[in-house]
């Protein structure tokens, strides 16, 4: 029996996460990380954000951003520790911890967005 290797799927998630986070994250960091906290711009009211994320399309985009970004991180982090820092003896542990964290984060995102819908 041929065992399917998960690497191509994980690479697809990494790649998709790379594109989605590249497109959406810089402006979100600029707004929620700097412009609102430092008072350059007035932040949207709580109700406005709530109404926005209750929109199904917005929720799907946000869910994709969070899930794919987490798997993007997990994959890159694992490979950097393996190839970059040469931590080879712990590769199984690192894989379980990084993809596990991505799965937990995805579940949290699903729960929060479900509650907000």
């Amino acid at each position, binding site marked *: 029996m041929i*065992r399917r*290797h998960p690497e191509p799927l994980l690479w697809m998630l990494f*790649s998709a*996460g*790379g*594109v989605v*986070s*590249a*497109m*959406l*994250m*810089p*402006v*979100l*960091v*600029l*707004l*929620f*990380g*700097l412009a*609102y*906290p*430092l008072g350059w*711009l*007035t*932040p*949207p*009211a*709580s*109700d*406005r*954000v*709530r109404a*926005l*994320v209750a929109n199904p399309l*917005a929720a799907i985009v*946000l869910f994709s*951003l*969070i899930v794919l*970004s*987490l798997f*993007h*991180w997990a994959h*890159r*982090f694992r*490979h*950097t520790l*393996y190839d*970059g*820092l*040469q931590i*080879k003896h712990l*590769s*199984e542990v690192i894989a379980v911890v990084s993809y596990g964290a991505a799965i937990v*984060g995805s579940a*949290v*995102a699903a729960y*929060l*967005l479900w509650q*907000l819908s």
Partner: protein
Amino acid sequence: MEQTHTGSYTPYHPRWLRRRLSTYWWLEKPAYLWFMLREGSCMFVAWFTLYLLWLLDAVLEGPLAYELFLAWSGTPWVVALNVVTLGFVVFHAVTFFQAAPQAMVVRLGRRRVPPGAVLAGHYVAWAAASVVLWVLLRGA
């Protein structure tokens, strides 16, 4: 056939032919350091993903929790971390888009879209997405 990355035996590549690399090989040349910084950008992508989850949690809890989140986001260490995060996510975006024309071959009919156009398309999409989010998230 399954290949393992960690086994003590790998076909065709006897261990004794491999040069042992220092753990800090990426400090040897600027190009290697850039590679490591590019890979390291994923840590900031992960940080901001967590930040978004906290924001969603605060929005779910109500206006007071949202105000507390905004206040927390203005504390010096969070602002400092987000300044570095902005630098890294922009660096991530630029390097990821740079690789896109090599990773994907776009065809229109029988002709291949030139790599420069694929790259430009990514930048146009990036700009458009940023403007849409900016407008949607305007304060009252």
